[in-house]
């Protein structure tokens, strides 16, 4: 029987298999940030051991960092201590750090790919659930807890039960104004936030192969939101083209050798998945969420479900969610007023996302009622955006272009949506309080976020695209 792409990568990293238990999985690339690593380093100190393979770990501060005045000392004392701790720990153990003012600093899942650290066929872990992002390159990438961060630092391995395999196939052409973000929000709305728990997902079909690397990353990024360990897409010419020439990409003979291997990374025709799902690209419209988990999403022209559409067991959680959002079950989504727009995060903070947003708002004006924060995913994204004049377009349209970091996606820094306010956000989670205590988040694509920023209310971006 043939093997899936996931099997090929996973199996080639198994150091040993514990009978009736997990695999000992070798990790090629380990990414760390300030929030989930300090306790792991403290653990090494307690054991009196050093980092086993420091060259396989790369660090950057992202979760806590301010998005204004990054050249100054971080004001929040706890954040500052955590960021300093990362500097201390990486220095002590000889780990490469891209610190706050470094030209490569940024959200860990944005910088990995853009530096060429993320490569096909690798195992990649990070103490952050959105590590699934890197699966876009045909790597097995997933988030881990701090105890597991410590395992990787100590031994370059973790203990993991092998997940089951699922394939999600979407063929056909995406409609106008429908983006990779809408594809993934559509899938999660179909299968719920636990629909892929226990699985590793492979995405196949023209709806995915037709995407840029940035688009593929958005899809893989949110795979965790359906409960899956991770998601991946077979590498192809688009992947190789993206990696070639990047700072840490293989060069010369090494490139040729790696490329040959990467080209073999495909699911065999006779491979069997534990579960297969198939959707049609033509059924997907711009999506937006209305509730307090990413599975509570709808096509933007639709309505919030009414109670009668739900099973009895689902109702209490749904009603709690509606109370939090202050939405009426059964009501239309279009036209609901919005207060904040946030563009950024490891989901949609890449150059392509900034371009899409800037193209949309070019020559228009931000609605007066909207506060908008545009946060690039990394220093390199920021630099490129400035080179392309995106910062000017944004400023002319009334938007504030800030400095890189996780920012309002999880509101660990000052960028918090105030209580009771509605935010349309290009991020990955609309959980209660995610963007600040009492904040009401609606997830959407950069295009939809742009349309909302212009009108001040939930708006179908296709209304504007039709004018062109």
């Amino acid at each position: 029987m043939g093997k899936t792409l996931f099997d090929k990568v996973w199996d080639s990293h198994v150091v040993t298999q514990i009978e009736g238990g997990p695999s000992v999985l070798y990790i090629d690339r380990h990414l760390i940030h300030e929030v989930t690593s300090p306790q792991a380093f403290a653990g090494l100190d307690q054991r009196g051991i050093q980092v086993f393979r420091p060259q396989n770990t790369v660090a950057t501060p992202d979760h806590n960092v301010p998005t204004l005045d990054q050249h100054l000392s971080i004001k929040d004392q706890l954040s500052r201590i955590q960021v300093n701790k990362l500097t201390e720990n990486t220095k002590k153990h000889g780990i490469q750090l891209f610190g706050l003012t470094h030209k490569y600093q940024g959200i860990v899942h944005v910088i990995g790919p853009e530096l060429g650290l993320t490569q096909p066929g690798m195992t990649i872990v990070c103490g952050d659930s959105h590590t699934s992002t890197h699966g876009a390159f045909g790597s097995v990438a997933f988030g881990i807890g701090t105890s597991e961060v410590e395992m990787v630092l100590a031994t370059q391995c973790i203990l993991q039960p092998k997940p089951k395999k699922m394939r999600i196939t979407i063929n056909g052409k995406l409609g106008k104004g429908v983006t990779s973000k809408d594809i993934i929000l559509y899938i999660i709305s179909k299968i719920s936030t636990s629909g892929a728990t226990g699985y590793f997902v492979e995405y196949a079909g023209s709806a995915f192969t037709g995407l840029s690397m940035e688009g593929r990353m958005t899809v893989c990024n949110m795979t965790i939101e359906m409960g899956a360990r991770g998601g991946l897409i077979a590498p192809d010419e688009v992947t190789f083209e993206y990696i070639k020439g990047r700072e840490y990409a293989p060069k010369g003979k090494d490139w040729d050798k790696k490329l040959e291997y990467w080209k073999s990374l495909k699911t065999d025709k006779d491979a069997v998945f534990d579960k297969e799902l198939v959707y049609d690209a033509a059924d997907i419209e711009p999506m937006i969420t209305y509730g307090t988990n990413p599975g509570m999403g709808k096509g933007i022209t639709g309505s919030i479900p009414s109670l009668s559409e739900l099973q009895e067991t689902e109702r209490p959680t749904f009603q709690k969610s509606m109370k939090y959002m202050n939405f009426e079950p059964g009501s239309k989504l279009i036209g609901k007023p919005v207060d904040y727009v946030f563009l950024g995060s490891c989901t949609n903070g890449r150059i392509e996302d900034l371009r899409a947003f800037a193209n949309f708002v070019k020559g228009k004006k931000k609605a007066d009622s909207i506060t908008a924060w545009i946060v690039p995913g990394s220093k390199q994204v920021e630099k490129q955006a400035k080179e392309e004049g995106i910062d000017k377009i944004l400023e002319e349209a009334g938007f504030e272009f800030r400095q890189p970091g996780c920012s309002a996606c999880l509101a660990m820094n000052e960028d918090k949506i105030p209580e009771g306010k509605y935010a349309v956000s290009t991020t990955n989670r609309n959980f209660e309080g995610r963007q600040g205590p009492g904040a009401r988040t609606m997830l959407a694509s950069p295009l939809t976020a742009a349309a909302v920023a212009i009108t001040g209310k939930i708006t179908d971006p296709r209304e504007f695209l039709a004018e062109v």
Partner: protein
Amino acid sequence: MSIEKFITLKSPCVPLPIENVDTDQIIPARFLKATTRDGFGENLFRDWRYDKQNQPVSDFVLNNSLYSGKILVAGKNFGSGSSREHAAWAIHDYGFKVVVSSFFADIFKNNALNNGLLPVQVSEGFLKKIFNEIQKDTKVLVEVNLENQTITILSTGEKESFEINNYKKECLLNGYDDIDYLLSIKDKIVEFEQSRTV
């Protein structure tokens, strides 16, 4: 180093009959700024437990003196979302030793097991029975036996078995630590590194 052993536990339960309890609710991101593992219990379910003025929300279960115990019983898909191990630390630090649900998110489950917090996955039907029994008697005792992999509602004698992989079971029963195991096979890891061609 070793983790806390788990063998059996007999305790009343704290019911949280909400589905999809995500790790942002268990411990909001703004409380993740510590550099040690201690003290997260204080902020467990912070935004459900306290209001804006930091006053306890009287109808939240952790503020209700009728309920106590070392077993948290929650609706399905518990621990979804972020990989923050702080969620497991917070639950454990608060004093829980077991979380019962009809479904757990993967990363949370791993994190819990790595901290001596036992996730017990039961059927939807059994979960409903536990909630019903707690409703009848807030002090009803539930027994979790890891050796036999069973969970029993002592008032009715109803029992269900639960899954756990043998390796993790041995670790919890004996207090073994994953890193000690990995360090013990370091030669094998080096051998693996040397055998790789690409």
